[in-house]
């Protein structure tokens, strides 16, 4: 009897309640692809938008930042993991952002294995609040006291992204892997282009990997349709169409040269440039073109690929940013990537990174490049990743690599250093609670990163290529030998956003200016604000999209300027132009047509900035320095180098040749300041000037004067260093505009073209 009873109970155990039916995985025989078919819910008239309750369960918050919030959850009907990305609306009392609408509608129209799919949308309260319904801790539910409903994009959860993979010390990439991945990316982007969309934000962080090694292009937050014909083997999509789009798209380091120069008639070739950058990034494991400002990006590009001549790119010198083409850089990509790539590989790289967008390969042409048919052939199936690797894990990888060299003596204590290390400890403590713990047990037997064999399949250079050290690298190197890295520092992170601008606060959600405000993410630990390298890296999939707190114009979505047919109404799309309709009535419609105020500030109306500004070479002439100890004059350089700026003043110096030749001090001279500064530069070695070799062909003198363009030319004749970007520079990030930058007469650096 008791046996019967227990048998019944066991039966009950499985039979009472609802029997859940999960849709099976099917296989399409023709394409060989597996798929799952979701069904429409009975209680919904239209499939597409639902609510969390009963459909999704939140598991964990993956990240929070300027981009919004991302959660990992479970799709209850299939019991599969999803990412739930909140769409942030700039202000509640505004229309749904067109960028978000584009992202959703474009994703709904794409159906390809190399493009991420949108499962559906959710319009609901934040899942933390809904979590209470699933029996979660109520304190957790009340943690985010967001009372407003929001839209959430439900996307299939992917185990890795390319940025995370490249930084993961336990992942080694063979050339066959790289070829496989390149072909997958090209196939995905070709599909997108053939469907008449441009992605406009190609970067490693936006290329996801699933557990089967299939790459998926994601984050269509900047994507849009284009006008004109789809691409072919010769021309990119939209070629020859007089359609204008905003040029302030794509994350800066992946921005194509035509965008950097302010071209608005661009094509799908902007995505191909991004893919070229990704291709090269496979080898250096960090973004290859890390411009510090929008303008600097142009210099960085030309330093790699060379300044384009007329034959290289006819249109370049007629674009708004044509000033950049007056530099004279030689291409260096062969030296930089020759150690990783064969001739064919270099050819592919150079044609993907062709400066002229119409000479750049299209995706379909790139897939047929001989590089993919030479040995080693692309792998048929990618055997990556070995663990979850996301962009948000990069800092953890950095920490791990630092631990590997912990047998070296510790750094000498100092106030500043102690603070730093504390921060690091804190952040590492936090990271220990990150998914690293959930790694599969067999991975613990992975070779220690230090034990990874030197002879990696992709030949790594024994020595880093000579490069201009970036600011954080310099900072890093100053910490001492014990902090020497075996892998590159996490430099492959998007530029840190600017702080909120001072002045009137138009964005009601922005923090008030008059009192210090702790960041909203303070409870998440330091790494959610900035990492140790001054970067802001907690972008899960893309940067600030719908909520642009930062007044930097980057990367702005083209809300209206993309409308090629629109020219009749004067309006501006930015928050700072918002006005009070009650008081100002119709004045909104009397405004001038919208003109971009930020970003790559190619302002045709700023004619005065073209002028050469006569200024002294140094703040004080040496004889007028009030206290030489407080204001030491620059150390005399050992050897005279002919600079552009010398050339610039060659007319005047020729006129005053006797002054220079005699080596007399100009301190008592009543000559114009400019001449005196020229002469005071090297009075001790002026005798050598005439014996010098004739100067090599040099960059644009104005350019050199403004920027101190390259290492040789970086010193002004006045002995004053003109850094490419100073905190005062309007384009520099992370610094509030000072008086010098707001007053054009006091500005040292001309930022505008």
């Amino acid at each position, binding site marked *: 009897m008791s046996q019967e009873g227990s048998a019944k109970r066991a039966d009950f155990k499985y039979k009472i309640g609802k029997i859940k039916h999960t849709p099976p995985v099917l296989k399409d025989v023709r394409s060989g692809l597996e798929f*799952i078919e979701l069904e429409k819910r009975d209680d919904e008239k239209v499939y597409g938008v639902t609510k969390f309750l009963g459909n999704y369960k939140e598991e964990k918050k993956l990240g929070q930042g300027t981009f919004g919030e991302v959660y990992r959850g479970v799709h209850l009907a299939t019991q599969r993991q999803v990412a739930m990305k909140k769409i942030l609306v700039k202000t509640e009392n505004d229309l749904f952002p067109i960028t978000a609408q584009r992202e959703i509608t474009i994703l709904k129209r794409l159906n390809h294995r190399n493009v991420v799919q949108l499962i559906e949308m959710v319009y609901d309260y934040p899942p933390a609040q809904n979590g209470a319904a699933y029996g979660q801790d109520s304190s957790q539910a009340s943690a985010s006291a967001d009372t407003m409903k929001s839209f959430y994009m439900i996307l299939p959860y992917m185990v890795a992204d390319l940025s995370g993979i490249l930084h993961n010390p336990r992942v080694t990439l063979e050339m066959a892997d790289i070829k496989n991945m390149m072909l997958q990316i090209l196939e995905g982007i070709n599909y997108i282009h053939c469907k008449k969309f441009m992605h406009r934000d190609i970067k490693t962080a936006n290329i996801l990997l699933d557990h089967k090694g299939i790459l998926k292009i994601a984050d269509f937050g900047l994507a849009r349709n284009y006008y004109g014909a789809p691409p072919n083997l010769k021309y990119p999509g939209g070629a020859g169409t007089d359609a204008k789009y905003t040029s302030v798209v794509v994350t800066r380091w992946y921005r194509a040269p035509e965008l950097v120069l302010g071209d608005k008639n661009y094509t799908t070739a902007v995505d191909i440039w991004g893919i070229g950058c990704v291709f090269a990034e496979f080898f250096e494991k960090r973004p290859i073109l890390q411009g510090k400002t929008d303008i600097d990006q142009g210099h960085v590009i030309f330093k790699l690929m060379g300044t384009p001549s007329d034959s290289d790119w006819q249109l370049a010198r007629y674009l708004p940013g044509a000033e950049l083409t007056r530099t004279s850089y030689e291409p260096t990509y062969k030296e930089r990537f020759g150690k990783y790539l064969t001739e064919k590989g270099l050819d592919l790289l150079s044609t993907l990174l062709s400066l002229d967008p119409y000479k750049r390969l299209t995706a379909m042409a790139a897939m047929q490049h001989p590089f993919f048919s030479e040995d080693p052939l692309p792998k048929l199936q990618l055997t990556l990743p070995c663990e979850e690797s996301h962009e948000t894990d990069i800092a953890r990888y950095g920490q791990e690599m630092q631990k590997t060299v912990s047998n070296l003596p510790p750094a000498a204590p100092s106030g500043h250093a102690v603070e730093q290390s504390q921060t690091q400890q804190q952040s590492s403590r936090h990271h220990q609670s990150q998914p690293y713990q959930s790694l599969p047990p*067999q991975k613990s037997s992975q070779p220690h990163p230090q034990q990874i064999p030197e002879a990696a399949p992709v030949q790594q250079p024994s020595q880093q290529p000579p490069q201009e050290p970036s600011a954080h690298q310099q900072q890093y190197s100053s910490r001492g030998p014990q902090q020497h890295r075996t892998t590159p520092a996490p430099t492959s992170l998007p530029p840190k956003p600017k702080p909120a601008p001072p002045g009137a606060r138009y964005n009601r959600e922005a923090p008030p200016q008059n009192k210090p405000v702790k960041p909203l993410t303070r409870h998440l630990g330091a790494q959610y604000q900035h990492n140790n390298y001054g970067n802001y890296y907690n972008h899960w999939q893309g940067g600030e999209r719908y909520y642009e707190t930062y007044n930097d114009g980057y990367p702005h979505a083209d809300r209206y300027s993309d409308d090629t047919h629109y020219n009749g109404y004067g309006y501006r799309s930015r928050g700072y132009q918002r006005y009070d309709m009650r008081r100002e009535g119709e004045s909104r419609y009397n405004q001038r047509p919208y003109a971009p105020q930020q970003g790559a500030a190619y302002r045709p109306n700023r004619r005065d900035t073209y002028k050469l500004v006569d200024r002294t070479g140094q703040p004080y002439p040496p004889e007028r320095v009030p206290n030489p100890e407080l204001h030491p004059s620059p150390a005399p350089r050992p050897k005279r180098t002919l600079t552009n700026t010398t050339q610039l003043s060659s007319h005047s110096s020729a006129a005053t040749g006797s002054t220079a030749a005699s080596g007399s001090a100009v301190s008592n001279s009543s000559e114009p300041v400019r001449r005196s500064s020229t002469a005071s530069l090297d009075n001790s070695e002026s005798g050598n000037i005439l014996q010098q070799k004739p100067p090599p062909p040099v960059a644009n003198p104005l350019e050199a004067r403004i920027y101190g363009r390259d290492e040789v030319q970086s010193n002004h004749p006045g002995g004053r260093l003109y850094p490419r970007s100073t905190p005062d520079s309007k384009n520099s990030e992370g610094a509030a505009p000072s008086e010098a930058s707001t007053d054009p007469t006091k500005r040292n650096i001309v930022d505008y073209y």
Partner: protein
Amino acid sequence: MAEPDVSDTNTALKKSGEPGMELENNKATSGAVVTEAGFNTRKLWPDLIKLPSNRWVYSCKEIVDRLGTDPKAAQLTKKKMEKCLMYFYMIKKNLRLFDHTYTAACILFFRYWYIYELPQSLQDCIHLSQAILATACKAMENNRPLDMYVKATCEFMMKDLAQQQRGRQNMDKLKWDVRDKLVRYEKQLLCQFGFDLDLQNPKELIEEIFSGFYRFNRDNIMDEEFKKLFPKILAEARNFIIQAGTQPVSLLCDGYTFTALALLFAGLQYKRSTAPNFRFPRHFFQERFPIRITGPMIVNLFTDYRILEDNFFDLKSNKGDKLEVTNEEVQSLIDEEPTDETVPNPYDYELIKDGVCSQEFLDHTESKLKELTEKIISESLKKRPVIDDNTPKDDTKRVKM
């Protein structure tokens, strides 16, 4: 390592009911499928996800029945619908919107009415129409700032008010009210449509189907005489789409069918009025549309259109008797292969993914590129005349500066 470990899984493939598909046994009782890297494939997604599609096409009877059996209520509904359609037309003029934005707004409006019914009050119907128009504008990349919609809507509303009421109406208050309603209704609308905004707008489709790319790569083998004539037919078809969009024809068929219907109507009128021997080239529709065009289908659609005209709005643009078509007439107009096989989609990615195209198209693109380059150069020279550094500079002027 990401290769799924299938050794311990029940991977016996079973034929499913659908042809060309196999079912991977996925019993809930079988053990978890864990890859070498430790990923549970049961928790992650396969290569593709097939999503349910929404039904936006209905039979003529369903559409007419949706008006209800009460003639008073039906009349009221039609009055509200007319007002909303008038609103679209007026705002299109006011904000200088594209024709295809107007068409998109009409499509969305009829879809909304069919599924959710219109709001009770006329005022709310206008608010709803405003949100529909704003959504259509964004979907058609013809966007305007919020305040422009608000201003235009307020003007539209004020026109309806009597002179006395107009004076009493607080314009500022109305504007804020309209603005708030727009924001609220837009959100509601997006949820109700499930963001399914792939409208298959026939006005867009007709431009795409006969765009330059296809003109050079597909239509270059067309009869010269037809090539000369075709622009006229195309213009007539465009008119048909805009006018027919005002009646709920978009609920009768999908966008491609609507476009084909427009071309056939235009061809029919030309045949009736000018050239009795006119006929579309062989396989004209088969090569250009992912649908099969047959005589009876077209006759039915024209008949349904006529019924809708009779049941809905009495407009100047109504086609009336012109929609009386016989099967023979249609058959004499088209030259399609009568097959039962499913028609392949001529816009399938697989067909254009290799990028092979005709030399004429490449030449055409090159010439357009040259034009564009010259235009950019001339504009650039107007804005920023290029200064040649080698030219001697006038020193006197420089000194004066």
